[in-house]
């Protein structure tokens, strides 16, 4: 819708093509319808042929600067204008701007008789006049076969219609001829496909299991490659959108940038950085394991970074999601009000799988988010077969990857059966797969998660228990017991046991420390006692010494007196009188 280019392609070797501007169709046809040639659009009643034609002209006039003429052989102009308005096209304005010319060819069989030869020059002149009035490059004949019902002599009519197609081709008008298909073995009621050899598109509207799907197929495109599959398409207030079943190639860029999961410790489990930007993440688990909560964390974190998020809720209403997430401390409402977060809630049963896909596409294209959440994809199985869901998801994943959008898909696993096997069908599409599970041990259920795979990054192999608190989801420490990871009460009791061991050790240390102290006190007390004893002894000894000294002197004195009294030589006794006595001791 954004690109504006002329109808003719720059490359002269390839067939020039006129882009239809119809979402997705130009992709299938490799650029549009053959320019300057007729294209047959065939389909049953109510298959959208007229709207196809209208959109082809409106887009041509508004986006590619190619005015158009609509020759209606069935609907009146007011009816046509009104029907086009339901697709958001204002035909009156385009007519007033001379970019579109509407002509209603009405013939009533009751008032017509035939007499002799005739030709369709009247129609030719009308068309030529209309084309000239707006300078048309495109024209739609809807449905020219109606003439067979109104005009006599089908032989002449066939020849004239053939001449008309040749004439339109000569004039270089890109023409869409619609035709009613009432039998599966024939493209048109009167076999006019013989005259249109360039391009044939078949529209189909079928009902299966009470759900209607519209499909489009390019049956033939002379001189050009084209997708040959049946492509689902949708008609809504923005016109027709066709979706290629499989994208053309796996050539999307792979970003090395990472985005946080919004849960610190979960980031930690994936190389401390989180998911790759633009990757697809599968969150699977049985009911009540917290899939939406994990997704909500991711959304909340993205909105905090100022990124836009688109949330497809296939099970809960937006209000319900917001309320429930508030209970774990995530308030999404401000993001909705700021326009960063958009919810789209609908039961897939509303319109079938193709419609879901197309609606998803449309919202993504118009909102341009960087994060998309689909919650849950399992609800899609309600409306379709596994095969179709898988093909739809493949297309969605491819589309998201080419847009570089990070996507989270939640998937509900049935309580019975293997957790991993049931998801095998979609898991191969996903880059990262987080498995949430309930672990039942000791009469209680606890939540645990692990990273089952994560392409292109290191990731933890641990099964981690988590709890949903008022503050959000919290991953807990890993406690391994003899039977694996301990959760819930078992974890609590293990935590208790570990605490007890620590306490015991601390007490033991305390006791030892006290023992030491006691010993030191005993030791010190003994020291004091010993010193006291020593002091007593010392005192005694000192007394003894002084007593004996005293005694020695007295003896010397006594001896001196005796010498003096005997009048002998006194020098020897005076000099070292005490020494012999001290040596004796």
């Amino acid at each position, binding site marked *: 819708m954004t690109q504006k280019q002329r109808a003719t392609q720059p490359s002269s070797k390839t067939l020039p093509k006129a882009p239809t501007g119809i979402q997705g169709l130009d992709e299938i046809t490799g650029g549009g319808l053959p320019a300057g040639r007729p294209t047959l659009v065939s389909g049953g009643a109510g298959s959208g042929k007229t709207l196809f034609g209208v959109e082809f002209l409106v887009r041509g006039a508004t986006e590619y600067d190619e005015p158009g003429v609509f020759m209606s052989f069935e609907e009146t102009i007011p009816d046509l204008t009104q029907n086009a308005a339901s697709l958001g096209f204002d035909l009156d304005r385009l007519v007033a701007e001379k970019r579109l010319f509407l002509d209603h060819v009405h013939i009533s069989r009751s008032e017509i008789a035939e007499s*002799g030869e005739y030709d369709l020059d009247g*129609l030719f002149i009308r068309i030529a*006049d209309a084309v000239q009035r707006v300078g048309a490059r495109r024209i739609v004949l809807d449905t020219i076969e109606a003439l067979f019902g109104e005009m006599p002599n089908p032989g002449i009519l066939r020849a004239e219609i053939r001449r008309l197609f040749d004439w339109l081709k000569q004039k270089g008008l890109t023409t869409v001829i619609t035709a009613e298909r009432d039998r599966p073995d024939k493209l048109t009621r009167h076999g006019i496909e013989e005259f249109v050899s360039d391009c044939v598109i078949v529209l189909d509207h079928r009902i299966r299991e009470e759900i209607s799907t519209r499909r489009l197929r390019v049956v033939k495109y002379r001189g050009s490659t084209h997708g040959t599959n049946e492509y689902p398409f949708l008609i809504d207030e923005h016109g027709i959108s066709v979706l290629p079943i499989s994208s053309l190639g796996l050539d999307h860029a792979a970003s090395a940038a990472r985005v946080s999961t919004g849960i610190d410790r979960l980031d930690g489990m994936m190389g401390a950085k989180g998911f790759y930007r633009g990757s697809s993440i599968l969150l699977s688990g049985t009911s009540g394991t917290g899939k939406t909560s994990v997704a909500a964390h991711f959304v909340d974190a993205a909105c905090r970074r100022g990124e836009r998020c688109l949330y497809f809720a296939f099970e809960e209403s937006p209000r319900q999601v917001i309320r429930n997430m508030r209970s774990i401390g995530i308030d999404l409402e401000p993001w909705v009000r700021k326009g960063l977060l958009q919810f789209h809630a609908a039961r897939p049963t509303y319109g079938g799988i193709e419609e879901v896909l197309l609606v998803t596409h449309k919202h993504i294209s118009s909102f341009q988010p960087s994060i998309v959440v689909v919650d849950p994809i399992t609800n899609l199985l309600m409306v379709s077969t596994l095969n179709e869901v898988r093909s739809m998801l493949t297309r969605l994943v491819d589309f998201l990857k080419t847009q570089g959008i990070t996507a989270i898909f939640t998937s509900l696993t049935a309580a019975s059966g293997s957790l991993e096997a049931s998801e095998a069908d979609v898991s191969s599409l996903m880059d990262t797969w987080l498995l949430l599970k309930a672990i039942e041990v000791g009469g209680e259920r606890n939540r645990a998660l692990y990273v089952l795979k994560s392409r292109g990054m290191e990731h933890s192999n641990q099964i981690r228990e988590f709890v949903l608190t008022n503050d959000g989801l919290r991953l807990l420490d890993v406690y391994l017991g003899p039977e694996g990871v301990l959760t819930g009460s078992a974890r609590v009791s293990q935590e208790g046991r570990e605490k007890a061991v620590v306490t015991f050790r601390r007490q033991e240390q305390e006791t030892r420390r006290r023992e030491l102290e006691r010993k030191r006190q005993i030791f010190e007390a003994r020291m004091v006692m010993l010193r006291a004893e020593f002091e007593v002894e010392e005192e005694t000894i000192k007394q003894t010494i002084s007593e004996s000294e005293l005694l020695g002197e007295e003896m010397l004195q006594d001896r001196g007196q005796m010498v003096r009294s005997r009048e002998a030589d006194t020098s020897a006794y005076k000099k070292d009188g005490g020494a012999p006595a001290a040596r004796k001791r």
Partner: protein
Amino acid sequence: MPKTKTKTRARTRKPRPGKPEFWNLRLYVAGQTPKSIRAFANLEVLCERHLKGRYRIEVIDLLEHPEMARGDQIVAVPTLVRDLPGPVRKIIGDLSNTERTLIGLALQPVV
């Protein structure tokens, strides 16, 4: 319009009192093709025989007035439109089959 090729041949005569019905006929053609010349000739003969004095033929060449094709919902040429007396009837072709033309115009042949 530079040259008006439109042949508006009015052969109006006063309608007779007993038969007030006046026929207003328009013949749409696309140029002077053999078919259109034939159609006009056939029509004139027929009118002279059955509607003498109470008819008017207007020949409209759509090449000159293409927009007029829309007004009368003309697809095929030649187309003869009986405007009056109502209801509107159309006959396509060169009018070579007189019987069918008379039936188409709901004209009672005058004996």
